[in-house]
């Protein structure tokens, strides 16, 4: 372990993350969320072999735990995260992310996260939804083009009554890898930002929470919401897919994902003539209806 949890201030916004071999993404990941005003990163390193752990241990704002148990045993890292949240999250706004996710929200370039969380509190909200938006390059993944393209309008939503949550799917992965079995396409629902209470728990990754009322991040009008820009489809995803297929780390039925990893290893092109290019302005993403400022002006 590195870093001291006692250094956490009562008002700090905290990031929680488990990761393995993310050295290429970590500097950008930390820089983006630091710029939003995150004060402490609570990270579990799952036996990285690429220097991720040493890099993290050198950061002044990272509190690091090293875990050796297999990812699978700890139910996709969620057990660790739930444990850390219960231990250190109480009363804080907690942002739970993977290392390939970057949170954006309305006005994010001009208003820090604390402005958002104060707004949410003023509205009586405890949780904030941010759908995962897969970014991809133009050209085959191996060519390493910039991750600046996305699908603007092919997302499908169903209500899951028991959990009071929405089940979002779609995007380039559903289109390119799950066109013949859309039910198995990845879940894009994410509720990463929660004002934590020790009674709360993530139920299924960061897709849903208990108690179910926390999942009501939508209504008949528009609630304020953000996006997790998913920085997955870099060339190294090809190697990682081979490794993940081998490690079978996904919870549920890992073999369901074999064709998905096979498609990824085959180095596809996700770009199409109707792909939308990120302009960098949150207003673009809001105008497209991917996220909403709700009543926040």
């Amino acid at each position: 372990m590195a870093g001291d949890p006692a250094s956490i201030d009562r008002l700090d916004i905290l990031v929680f993350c488990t990761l393995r071999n993310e050295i290429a993404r970590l500097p950008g990941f930390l820089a983006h969320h630091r710029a939003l005003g995150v004060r402490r990163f609570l990270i579990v390193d799952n036996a990285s072999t690429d220097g991720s752990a040493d890099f993290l241990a050198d950061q002044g704002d990272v509190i690091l735990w090293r875990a050796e148990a297999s990812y699978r045993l700890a139910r996709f890292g969620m057990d660790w995260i739930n444990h850390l949240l219960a231990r250190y999250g109480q009363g804080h706004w907690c942002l739970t992310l993977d290392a390939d996710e970057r949170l954006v929200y309305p006005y994010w370039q001009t208003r820090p996260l604390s402005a958002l969380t104060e707004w949410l509190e003023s509205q009586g909200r405890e949780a904030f939804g941010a759908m995962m938006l897969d970014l991809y390059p133009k050209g085959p993944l191996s060519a390493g083009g910039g991750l600046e393209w996305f699908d603007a309008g092919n997302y499908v939503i169903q209500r899951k009554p028991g959990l009071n949550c929405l089940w979002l799917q779609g995007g380039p992965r559903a289109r390119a890898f799950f066109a013949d079995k859309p039910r198995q396409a990845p879940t894009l629902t994410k509720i990463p930002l929660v004002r934590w209470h020790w009674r709360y728990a993530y139920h299924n990754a960061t897709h849903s929470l208990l108690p179910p009322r926390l999942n009501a991040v939508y209504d008949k009008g528009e609630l304020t919401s953000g996006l997790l820009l998913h920085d997955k489809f870099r060339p190294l995803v090809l190697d990682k897919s081979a490794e993940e297929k081998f490690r079978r780390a996904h919870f549920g039925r890992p073999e369901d994902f074999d064709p998905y990893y096979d498609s990824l290893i085959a180095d596809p092109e996700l770009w199409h003539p109707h792909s939308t290019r990120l302009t960098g302005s949150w207003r673009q993403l809001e105008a497209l209806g991917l996220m909403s400022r709700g009543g926040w002006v």
Partner: protein
Amino acid sequence: MTVGFVLLCHQSLGRAAQVAAHLAERDCPVVVHVDTRVSAADRGAFAEKLKGLANVRVISRQACEWGTWSIVQATLDAAGVMLRDFPGVGHVFLASGSCLPLRPVQALRDYLGQRPDTDFIESVTTEDVGWTVGGLDIERFTLRFPVSWRKHRRLFDTYVRLQRRVGFRRRIPQAITPHLGSQWWCLTRDTLAAILEADDRPEIDRYFRRVWIPDESYFQTLARRYARRIESRSLTLSKFDVHGRPHLFYDDHLQLLRRSDCFVARKIWPGAGALYTAFLSDDPGQGAHGEPNPGKIDRLFAKATERRVKGRTGLYMQSRFPRPDRVNARTAAPYAVLQGLDVLFADFEGWLSRLTGSRVHGRLFGAERAAFAGGEQVFNGGLSDSPILRDYNPQAFLANLIWNTRGERQIFQFAPQDNLAILPFVATDPQAYMAVVSGAWAIPLAMQAVRPDADFVALRREAALLQRQETEALDLLSQPTSKARLRHWSLVEFLERAQDHLQLVVDEISPGTARRLTDMPQMVDLTPLPQFLQALRNEGMQPVLAGDLGDLEALIQGGEKRGRLRVAK
């Protein structure tokens, strides 16, 4: 004369001190009331920051709870100090610690100097007020409110209901006529002094102690007693959300605030450093600086409220997912679904697209694929032509298609063999227009039937299936709950006046573009049809949806003779 500021503070005292110092250094006396619930250490630090300024007074007498008399009492206390200690003050401006002056102090002084007798206070009779949250207006003055609304909402509401039921009413003092308005005002010395020094003030104060939210009625009512000239508006720009909570202003509102030409804005987010830097200066910034003009800000906030409450029509996303039966329009824009025309006319889609300039798709819900215009495999927004993806959630597919092409009318073909699961959605969508020529599905079958290798048994089975499906579709579309506009002709009815009916469809799907159809599309050869339908009948099926068979035969033969139907050979 100058203007004095009364500042009510209970949080972000650092910012409040900054504003107070800014004003005091520019010869505006300031009296600050700090909530007694602020810790002694914080109060001390605050007073320390303003220590060197001779024209600042800091008092701390009331614990100000929202909606209660304590706020009025704190205001009266501070105003009393202001009148007593600063005789040079001609107007007193009431603001909070999270307010920010938007224009140089001198501009405000000039403005008030030109209007020495005018009181700026929003003051509206209870009948005319339109903004009270919770519906309490005149009842604020006639009921009792002994419990906190914020802490015990349920009890508060119950007690209000009880008083209504038993018909309880407080007596309003004779001397006053209740008025309501924004808490934030700017009063002349004379009016304020008259209110503070009134002979009957003990009685008036006793009455207002039990009025609900007196900070929005005490001065607003009493100013009416004494003022020479009231301008019923606040010089403070403040906006409220749907819950009645004040909106905050952030750094990115800088230009908006500057162009508003308002004197003071509330509330400012304490972290909005750029706003404090920009406005706590003597730089007048750009702009004409005439009368305050909050119109643009008003519109922005009105739009935000509408987005929050209603949302964007036809959008389904992570934070907007209305129950389908609770929305009016299910999609974002009008669209048209045409059934039967694409088999009756050759290259119908191309013809219609050229005529209307709209995007005309093929059969979007066909079994093989979603036939996007131009044969695209991936359409706007990344919609795939895969029928499996589409049929996984056909409603989302259609809603996405219409959303993704906002501003451009969509038209697509439909047929009884397509995925009927979309029809209940279309039928209940007022954005939908559907034109059906029933029985037209028999035309391609009839053409196949005349081929030497035709398998009539299979064609008959197919015909029976399509007839069943089309009947089901028409049933769905003509339910009483249906909101789509439906035009339905049997094939015979349509053929009787094909050009007129086609003209009607074109007019209805592209309104505002009155075009006479000069170039009719080519109709396919219908000669094999009567014989095919007769053969179906002979095999025991009753083809009903096309219309009367005898009429059809007469139309096809007569049509050729009279030249009414142009038939492609």
